[in-house]
């Protein structure tokens, strides 16, 4: 009966644990802990506490800290305890400090000395305890203090010490790679350690080192392969077997390392093929650990230089995972599929139904993993279906972290593969509407930039269509309440720039809407600033176009309010607006040129435009300006200009000017002035898009077209060549364009999985089913016009134009012929099955959502709600149990063993007793679900 009563703790401590176990609410628990803290504070500072008592106090501190309360008042006592001579006390001290202190805590400096001493101890257990503390507590500053001793311990006779020393060095490497860079040979040496445990531990630092610098470790490939081979052939002692697998954890680590070393290296990979193939065969796919190794094999195969045989084995393993009933294996299967798909894209197709099942699974984790897979396999043919699904899911969840992630993925996919401007704008609208304040502001800037620049082609017509559709949709959206701030900024900016550009909307319409925005979001200064600037632009364009400006009354009142605003920014903008309105046509045209947000702004730092004015003034007898440095010397007008140029280059100069050299002034138009005049300088403040554009440009370029490979999009030869081109570099904008060109027929969403599957997978793989013509029509007509600008795709333009015009794609349009042609391999039975499955899934999903609605379990459980009562028996169990004197029914029920193998307990009496309790529990109706044993060992 080791458990009850614990190992010689005082009654007081047992009572504490018991009362916390019985606490009915979080508040009650907190009250108990707070009074305990008071007691401890008082007791712990008493003089001459016996060691044993002190040890218990420290454990009580650990306990209250574990419950989330602050026990920092006792840290110093834990530190003191590490100084003790007796290992018993010292060990407790070390345990407490490793749990209490983070590596940057001030008290660590007090422990370093003790650690140094303990690392030299004769007793290896003391050394081990110290090494444990080293791993947790030593920070970058204190590494040098213990490093020599830790290195020395690598040669310690006890393997446990060597192992911990390796792990400590690994930790040092993580904290400060430079501190151990001269010790890397030690890791290599330890790889040959006699003890498999030490060798296994060495793999951890080696993995990190190899991940950093693959090339320096290529010579170890042979060693790793031979170690892995020996492990797989059961050359290690039986002690390392785990569930009949030979040292699986070491195998996994080795496979991870091989994956790194073989990545992109044909020669290294070839040496691995045999051993990885062997492991595939040897893995027992019925046990969890066998599957863990299998999964690692798949990861390895997908990382090293491809080998058909291994890829086949990996594909087999994946299909076993996906077909399994276990959600865990399905999850791993989806993940593995995402890895393998990069090498052999055709594999996804065999599993389309399984993937759809996972997508519709009520399990959120599985669903998200599947979205990740879909994200990886998105291409121009299926982008609409996938992004639509993603947005649907995005709207349905509350987890902000994931919402942000999925929103940025939607944006990325839309930017890369958007089939039409219309769709792009609509998609972005949805994303911003539902996750607006979560997305990175850069994305908003990017959107503004895209709208301003168009898609980077020289087709103005398409660009202006894009803008008009944006303006139209934004004016519509503004009617909705509570839009996210980021989205409003985009809207205001676009309305300001292009609101009246195509003449569809009058200035008063647009300004009215903008005033509404400023009014409705009056607490948001950024949005207001955007709105005011947009107003200014619209009025400026009106003036420039020669129309008379009538300011709406609400606009006027807004201006009056802003002129007196507390925000200097808003105030300034309002004054600027007022000033602009008062100017004449010519001036306004210069200040606010139409659609010039993408023009580089040239700043004439030499102020040459003032020359005439100065000349005039000088002629009238004014004194010429003399730079300060020259004021005492002679004035040379010719030099003055030259100096001025010079100055403008370097900004402020504090050292004295050199005397002008004749050579410099004689140089005909040197590099300097040109640079000066053409450098685009920081944007004017009223132009918000420019602020982010420099970064945004980078971001766009980084976006690669992921699934545009020719093998994966088998199409007509022309489109093949286009997609290939986009893979081989070219900017993302370009590839987007090209993606349009290779766009295929609209596939529809239906509730049947087959159709969804077809839209996701099927369409890509059966090129012969795809008619050569009549499928690209869904593109907006603007694209055709645009396409004719691309010389090498002119071949395609002809059939396209010949095809009858069809309405733009409707996602809900159930085009029967398309579905059959894209998913020809599916038989009707499967379709029926699919239907059934969906309904079941839907039901399950319903129940899951209701179940997952409970917001805070803790609160629910602690509260005296019906749910609390529902869980009462468990709580009772606990409390009953925690009372050592009670060994009746309640106690019995609360003793569900964590493990079934009762025979393992070496005390037969003890295990018998426990068995009896379990049996009792099994028949006791108030006990927990007997099914829990399914979760137990085996």
């Amino acid at each position, binding site marked *: 009966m080791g458990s009850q009563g614990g190992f010689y703790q005082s009654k007081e401590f047992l009572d504490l644990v018991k009362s916390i176990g019985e606490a009915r609410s979080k508040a009650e628990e907190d009250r108990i802990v707070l009074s305990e803290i008071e007691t401890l504070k008082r007791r712990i500072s008493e003089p001459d506490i016996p060691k044993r008592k002190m040890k218990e106090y420290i454990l009580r501190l650990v306990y209250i800290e574990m419950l989330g309360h602050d026990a920092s008042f006792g840290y110093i006592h834990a530190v003191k305890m590490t100084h003790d001579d007796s290992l018993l006390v010292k060990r407790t001290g070390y345990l407490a400090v490793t749990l209490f202190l983070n590596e940057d805590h001030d008290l660590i400096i007090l422990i370093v000395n003790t650690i140094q001493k303990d690392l030299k101890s004769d007793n290896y257990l003391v050394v081990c305890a110290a090494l444990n503390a080293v791993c947790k507590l030593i920070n970058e500053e204190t590494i040098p203090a213990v490093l020599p001793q830790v290195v020395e311990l690598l040669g310690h006779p006890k393997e446990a010490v060597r192992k911990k020393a390796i792990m400590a060095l690994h*930790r040092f490497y993580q904290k400060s790679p430079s501190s151990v860079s001269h010790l890397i040979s030690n890791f290599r040496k330890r790889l040959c350690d006699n003890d498999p445990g030490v060798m296994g531990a060495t793999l951890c630092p080696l993995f990190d080192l190899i991940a950093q610098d693959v090339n320096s470790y290529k010579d170890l490939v042979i060693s790793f392969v031979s170690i892995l081979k020996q492990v797989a052939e059961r050359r290690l002692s039986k002690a390392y077997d785990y569930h009949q697998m030979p040292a699986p954890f070491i195998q996994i680590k080795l496979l991870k390392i091989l994956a790194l070393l073989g990545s992109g290296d044909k020669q290294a990979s070839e040496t691995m093929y045999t051993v990885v193939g062997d492991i595939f065969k040897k893995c027992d796919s019925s046990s969890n650990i066998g599957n863990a190794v299998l999964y690692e094999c798949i990861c390895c195969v997908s990382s090293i230089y491809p080998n058909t045989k291994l890829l086949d084995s990996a594909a087999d393993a994946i299909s076993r995972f996906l077909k399994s009933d276990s959600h865990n294996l399905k999850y791993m299967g989806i993940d593995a599929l995402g890895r393998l798909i990069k090498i052999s894209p055709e594999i996804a197709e065999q599993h389309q139904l399984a993937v759809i099942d996972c997508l519709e699974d009520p399990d959120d984790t599985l669903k998200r993993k599947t979205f990740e897979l879909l994200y990886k396999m998105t291409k121009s043919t299926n982008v609409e279906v996938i992004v639509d699904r993603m947005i649907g899911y995005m709207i349905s969840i509350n987890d902000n972290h994931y919402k942000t992630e999925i929103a940025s993925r939607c944006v990325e996919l839309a930017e890369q593969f958007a089939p039409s401007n219309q769709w792009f704008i609509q998609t972005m609208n949805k994303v911003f509407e539902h996750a607006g304040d979560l997305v990175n502001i850069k994305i908003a800037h990017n959107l503004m930039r895209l709208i301003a620049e168009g898609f980077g082609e020289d087709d103005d017509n398409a660009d202006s269509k894009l803008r008009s559709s944006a303006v139209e949709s934004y004016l519509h959206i503004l009617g909705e309440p509570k839009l996210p701030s980021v989205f409003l900024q985009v809207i205001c900016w676009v309305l300001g720039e292009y609101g009246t550009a195509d003449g569809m909307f009058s200035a008063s319409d647009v300004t009215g809407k903008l005033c509404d925005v400023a009014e409705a979001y009056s607490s948001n200064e950024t949005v207001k600033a955007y709105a005011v600037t947009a107003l200014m632009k619209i009025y400026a364009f009106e003036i420039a176009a020669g129309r008379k400006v009538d300011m709406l009354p609400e606009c006027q009142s807004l201006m009056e309010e802003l002129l007196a605003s507390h925000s200097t920014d808003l105030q300034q903008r309002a004054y600027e607006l007022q000033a602009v309105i008062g100017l004449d046509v010519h001036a306004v045209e210069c200040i606010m040129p139409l659609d010039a947000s993408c023009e580089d702004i040239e700043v004439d730092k030499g102020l040459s435009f003032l020359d005439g004015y100065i000349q005039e003034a000088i002629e009238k007898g004014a004194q010429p300006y003399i730079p300060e440095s020259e004021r005492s010397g002679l004035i040379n007008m010719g030099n003055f200009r030259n100096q001025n140029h010079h100055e403008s280059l370097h900004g402020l100069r504090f050292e004295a000017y050199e005397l002008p050299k004749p050579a410099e002034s004689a140089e005909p138009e040197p590099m300097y002035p040109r640079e000066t005049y053409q450098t685009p300088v920081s944007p004017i403040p009223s132009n918000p898009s420019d602020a982010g554009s420099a970064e945004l440009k980078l971001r766009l370029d980084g976006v690669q077209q992921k699934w545009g490979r020719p093998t994966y999009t088998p199409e007509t030869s022309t489109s093949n060549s286009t997609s290939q081109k986009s893979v081989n570099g070219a900017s993302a904008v370009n590839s987007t364009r090209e993606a349009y060109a290779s766009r295929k027929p609209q596939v529809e969403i239906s509730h049947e999985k087959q159709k969804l599957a077809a839209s996701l997978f099927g369409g890509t793989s059966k090129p012969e089913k795809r008619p050569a013509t009549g499928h690209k029509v869904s593109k907006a007509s603007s694209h055709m016009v645009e396409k004719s600008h691309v010389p090498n795709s002119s071949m395609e333009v002809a059939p396209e134009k010949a095809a009858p015009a069809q309405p733009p794609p409707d996602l809900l349009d159930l085009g029967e012929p398309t579905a059959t042609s894209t998913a020809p391999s599916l038989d009707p039975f499967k379709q029926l099955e699919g239907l059934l499955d969906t309904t079941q899934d839907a039901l399950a999903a319903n129940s899951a959502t209701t179940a997952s609605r409970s917001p805070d379990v803790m609160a629910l459980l602690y509260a005296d709600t019906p749910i609390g009562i529902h869980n009462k028996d468990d709580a009772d169990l606990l409390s009953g149990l925690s009372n050592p004197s009670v060994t009746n029914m309640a106690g019995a029920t609360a003793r569900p063993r964590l493990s079934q193998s009762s025979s393992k307990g070496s005390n037969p009496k003890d295990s018998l007793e426990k068995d009896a309790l379990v049996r009792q529990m099994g028949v006791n109706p108030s006990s927990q679900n007997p099914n829990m044993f399914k979760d137990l060992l085996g």
Partner: protein
Amino acid sequence: MIHFVLLISRQGKVRLTKWYSTYSQKERTKVIRELSGVILTRGPKLCNFVEWRGLKVVYKRYASLYFCMCIDPDGNELEILEIIHHYVEVLDRYFGSVCELDLIYNFHKAYYILDEILISGELQEPGKRTIVRAVAAQDSLVETVKEQTGSISTIIAQASK
């Protein structure tokens, strides 16, 4: 790398926490609250994995106790499940068919054992016997200092040697 290990009871009570990455006390409380909210509400047949703040949490339920480990997104979840199981097996061997109460009252022992299995977030020792032997060695040494005979740990330790 494993960022932290949590043991939470079905009622959401914390039984053990071990942090291998740096988290302030406030963050710790938040993490525990968030995760117990997510994990305890999950149905029995779903995956044992939860994606959480860009990391992954692998959990497994043993009787009324949830063992959770948080890992990097590129980790092998099945392996972590086995590490959890490995820990439970060692606990079981040490305590002699372990139950939640063993861990409640002897949480420090559970920490010592965990320290022999994981070190700075990595699996340190895959051999069960080695771990039990290491912990037993510490215990027996302790017992020569303090006469704590009769403790079950000694009996088990001696038997398993």
